[in-house]
């Protein structure tokens, strides 16, 4: 999924991306488990700290971008209200 994930910022600029490897540390794993992640890869979308959607499993780039756009679109209010993260 990595090569696809890394292309996302080019296609969807108004989001910040963070990658987390559950194999790296117990903290990462616990964080994933706390958010209900049960499989890899899982992409979670947060807005203002709120969990607003997830995509589970592999996708081709185009499909992933369009599904993420749907998640973003359904939360336009939230995105409009949010202040940029630094």
């Amino acid at each position, binding site marked *: 999924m990595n090569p696809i994930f890394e292309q996302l910022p080019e296609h969807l600029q108004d989001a910040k991306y963070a990658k987390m490897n559950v194999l790296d540390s117990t903290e990462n794993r616990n964080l994933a*488990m706390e958010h209900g992640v*049960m499989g890899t890869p899982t992409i979670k979308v947060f807005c203002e700290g709120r969990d607003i959607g997830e995509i*589970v*499993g592999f996708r081709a780039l185009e499909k992933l971008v369009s599904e993420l756009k749907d998640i973003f679109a359904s939360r336009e209010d939230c995105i409009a209200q949010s202040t940029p993260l630094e």
Partner: protein
Amino acid sequence: MVGGQIALTYQVDNYPGFPDGITGPELVDLMKRQAEGFGAEFLEEEATGVILGSTPFGVLVDETEYQGRSVIIATGSKNRSLGLESEERLMGRGVFVCATCDALLYEGKRVVVVGGGDSAVQEALDLTRFAKEVYLVHRRDRLSACKCLTDRASQDEKIKFIWNTTVTEILGEKKVEGVRLSNQETGNVWTLECDGVLLAIGWIPNTEIFRGQLDVDERGYITSTNGVDTSRAGVYVCGDLNDRRYRQVVTACGSGCMAALEVERYLAEKG
């Protein structure tokens, strides 16, 4: 996708030449660059049909036909599924197919492994490193895995066996909450609560588009006398597609090399 399954694998530690391991995508990228260096061209398309009755052979991508004097087939295989709606819906949400990838997320949890062959038992053993309890559900009354794995599993206190039983439903709305089990002998139906279901019930070779043009056995594998030839001269197979036993990158590369050498010989003989 160029690279197949390994492009989706985080870490490969058992491919020769990389003493510190390498990530799947990096390994794929290196192989691709090497092939390109020798003039290979990559088309990221799905072959939808083949014409193998006469030479030049044809590979179809919808309406477009690509022709070649020889063909190597390396389409791999997909995980066999139970055929349940719930299985598809909960895939990645408790249903999974690879313990190496996801076992960590089941720390302290109860997982049901479905299957009874080498891969099911290996996956069950891998899971015991993290899971609290592992139930191995098998439709027969004993394992078909090799003795060494069977012995290890039988001695493992975390693994419990449920024989003569099939999974008829995976329960849960947003995530796995349990499985419905049916005993083949007694007809008894019951529910086992669990957090995860690992499917290890074998593979189906991706040979649909070749059926009717190449001899295929009852399980869908392309018939071969030496592992890489087929019922049609000039057409070869390699990799996981026709491998029922090893299924590793190094063995897939090995059989790929065998197929390529056969092509070379075939073309030289044909002149």
